[in-house]
């Protein structure tokens, strides 16, 4: 079984006078049902133009509470560029230039989507999805 490890460090030397912030956490990605070894990964990069709205990944399987993790980083360098993202057709947040996210995602039905929308400029984003299960799209006749 593959082992994938996600580590975060959040630091600040000036957030609270006399008390530097240093948060560290590590976890090993697990499949649905606590089985270690998330073996499937999809990774790439794409440009998201202003006003473009679409799915970042193809529709997933109808896996009730399937365990997935999503990484998205807005690699744009213009500080005014940003994009919005939605999970399950619910707006969750924004990624400005340089921002990244690491969020678990439940593919609780085939319509549970990961959507992105460019708001300003052309946002170059890097993304990855770690999957518990996946079914390739059926061939078209």
């Amino acid at each position, binding site marked *: 079984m593959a082992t994938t490890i996600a580590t975060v460090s959040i630091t600040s030397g000036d*957030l609270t006078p006399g008390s530097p912030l240093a948060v560290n956490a590590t976890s090993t990605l697990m499949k649905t049902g606590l089985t270690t070894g998330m073996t499937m990964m999809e990774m790439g990069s794409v440009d998201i133009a202003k006003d473009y709205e679409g799915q970042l990944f193809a529709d997933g399987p109808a896996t009730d509470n399937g365990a997935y993790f999503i*990484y998205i*980083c807005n690699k744009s360098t213009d500080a005014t560029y940003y994009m919005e993202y939605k999970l399950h057709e619910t707006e969750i*947040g924004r990624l400005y230039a340089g921002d990244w*996210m690491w969020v678990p995602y439940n593919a609780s039905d085939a319509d549970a989507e990961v959507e992105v929308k460019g708001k300003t400029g052309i946002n170059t984003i890097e993304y990855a999805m770690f999957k518990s299960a996946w079914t390739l799209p059926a061939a078209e006749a």
Partner: protein
Amino acid sequence: MPTLTPTLTLTSSDVTSDELNFSVTDSLTVTAPSQSLSTVVADTTGANTILKAASSAVTYIFIRHTGTTDGSTGTSQLLALENTDNTQFGSLKAGEWCFIPHLSGSLGIQLQSALGSIQAEYGYWTAS
């Protein structure tokens, strides 16, 4: 204004033939309100554990499932991440963490346990 530096590192030597090993770092200028690292115990009603109310600024939220109900008793129950309209968009297993740049109109973020209680660790910082 204070600067917050979050860094994500993903590693795997065997998920593909091409070894995975990369880090990404951001430099965020933050302002009030912020919540330093804290703990909270979520129960089976999401509205009882609202971590962050809606706001008009992006808030960077860190959440970790401690794997315990109270800091000492272990649990493997799932910790649901929800908007404050009770829409679940993900869940954390014991020991897992997430980092969410959040801005969702009139909705905040809340936690809900699948069963029993779950102690979570969290903090948030608002973009200036």
